[in-house]
């Protein structure tokens, strides 16, 4: 380990020279194609953000960047004044807040239960099964969810009632989506918490036992504080991604009836940008989503710092 550190320090000081490049020609050959790939597929789309300030429709699309009509912040204003923008933003935030809150609590609860149960083989089987829905595609999940939760579906038939989980054009649809998401991801999300729990000093539990603490007390005073840094980091990341509610899930789980409460920003960008071929407007919506995301990440990170918690960056 120390040898590597020494090597690292020695190497950091090296100067650029053709000799060095020749010496590392294989490393260059092995990396430059991927950097080119990265620039083409990740950085050129970033350059596409310039379209947010231009009037870009299929007609003006073929013009070079500097010849397209410049419209300043018009696309952003148009987006904010859109008939469905307000509802879309509320849906996105509602789904995120609900998803983060319920998802985090459920994943921690599930991890705690797995951590506590003493039937080892049973624990392993439960874990394996809990990963299954994570690996299944959203199309498959939607196909199953529609069969189970649609009006007159499996659940309605079994309960002899009409729950309307997939057909109420109200925030109930958010809850439905979040519950499906939790069903899909809870086992997977619990992995990180479980590994954090495995890292807690076992001596603490022994000491607590000697002091007469029962299991609930041990969980409350040792396990939960032990995984707090993990929870905080994941929460910060979740808040940073709060506006990035994926369009795929929303599109697949929704139907015409619940459209108003299923629309989220990324889908809105698609509908306006590609559906209506207003590329400038679509890009502006996407850019708004990205920038607010970064802002949220920075704020969440700062707040965590002020509260004396571990920070992400």
């Amino acid at each position: 380990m120390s040898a590597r550190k020494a090597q690292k320090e020695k190497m950091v000081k090296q100067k650029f020279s053709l000799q060095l490049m020749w010496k590392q020609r294989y490393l260059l050959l092995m990396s430059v194609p991927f950097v080119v790939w990265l620039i083409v597929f990740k950085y050129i789309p970033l350059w596409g953000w310039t379209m947010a300030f231009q009037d870009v429709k299929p007609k003006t699309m073929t013009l070079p960047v500097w010849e397209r009509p410049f419209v300043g912040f018009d696309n952003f204003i148009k987006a904010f004044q859109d008939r469905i923008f307000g509802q879309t933003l509320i849906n996105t935030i509602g789904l995120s807040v609900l998803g983060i809150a319920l998802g985090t609590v459920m994943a921690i609860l599930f991890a705690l239960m797995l951590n506590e149960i003493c039937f080892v083989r049973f624990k392993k089987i439960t874990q394996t099964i809990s990963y299954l829905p994570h690996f299944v595609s959203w199309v498959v999940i939607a196909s199953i969810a529609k069969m189970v939760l649609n009006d007159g579906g499996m659940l309605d038939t079994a309960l002899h009632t009409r729950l309307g989980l997939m057909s109420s054009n109200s925030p109930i649809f958010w809850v439905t989506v979040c519950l499906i998401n939790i069903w899909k991801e809870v086992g997977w999300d619990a992995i990180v918490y479980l590994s954090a729990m495995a890292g807690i000093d076992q001596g603490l539990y022994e000491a607590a036992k000697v002091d007469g603490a029962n299991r609930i007390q041990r969980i409350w005073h040792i396990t939960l504080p032990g995984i707090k840094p993990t929870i905080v980091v994941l929460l910060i990341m979740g808040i940073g991604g709060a506006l990035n509610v994926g369009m795929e899930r929303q599109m697949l789980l929704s139907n015409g009836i619940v459209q108003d409460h299923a629309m989220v920003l990324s889908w809105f960008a698609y509908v306006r940008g590609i559906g209506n071929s207003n590329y400038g407007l679509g890009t502006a919506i996407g850019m708004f989503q990205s920038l607010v995301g970064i802002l949220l990440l920075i704020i969440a990170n700062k707040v965590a710092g002020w509260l004396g918690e571990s920070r992400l960056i």
Partner: protein
Amino acid sequence: MAKVKSNRIKSRDNILDYVLLVIFLFLIVITIYPFLNVLAISFNDPIDTMRNINFIIPRKFTWSNYVYVFTENSLGKAFLLSIARTVIGAAVGVICTAMIAYVLSRKDFYFNKFFTILFVITMYVSGGLIPEYLLLMRTLKMGNNFLVYIIPGLIWVYNIILVRSFVEGLPIALQEAARVDGANDFIIWAKIVLPLCKPVLATVALFMAVGQWNSFMDTYLYAKELPTLQYMLYEIMEKATVKIDPHAAETLKNAVSPLSVRMAVTIVATVPIIIVYPFLQKYFVGGMTVGAVKD
């Protein structure tokens, strides 16, 4: 007194174990029941299915739904296409990931820091859907081309970090010994590093294969003429929810119903994953944890 108390705590703790057992059994049931239900419907007679959909053992067993899925031209093709993109995408992706990850693990490489930063930035900012769409469809003209399934998603930065931290954990002496013997960097990667990376590459292969197999949005956006199994399932699902035909029951006699076919396709789209993932469990659980503590 103290003994009585500790006994009480102990028995209450044991009760908790059984409470947990019951909760877990319930969770297992709600996870598995829908899949079993789908499986049963996919093997059940379509007309019989229309009467009631709540069962987990086929009541009138039939292969007809599956026969339809694999003989109906477009579905069979879609199945092959899904397999092709999964195998090619994952194989090419794993090799590429391993290669760039190795280079980025080499601290003595002059551009190490610069390239690493270039890659990591893209984890936090992306151009978004519209610029990517225009790049692929207008500039590169990759629409309805098989390459659109492979090239844009060739490597994931998350996987690079995963493999890089694994390579950094390998003993460096092996690489140095090979260098003394006159091996160049490519040979060292191919002959020394790659074989040692099998566990982490298995994880990456699983992630990428699952991603490829499950991918739906890229077909929807870029290649509707090259429908994969997932996309076909989506189409069947949309048709079945849109079409409300009062004469459906009559016309469907001697035929397959949309629901039964949908369930059969759902199973075909799920089974490869069920077969593969349990065997790779120890790898990806480790992989997840490495990712969580990334630098």
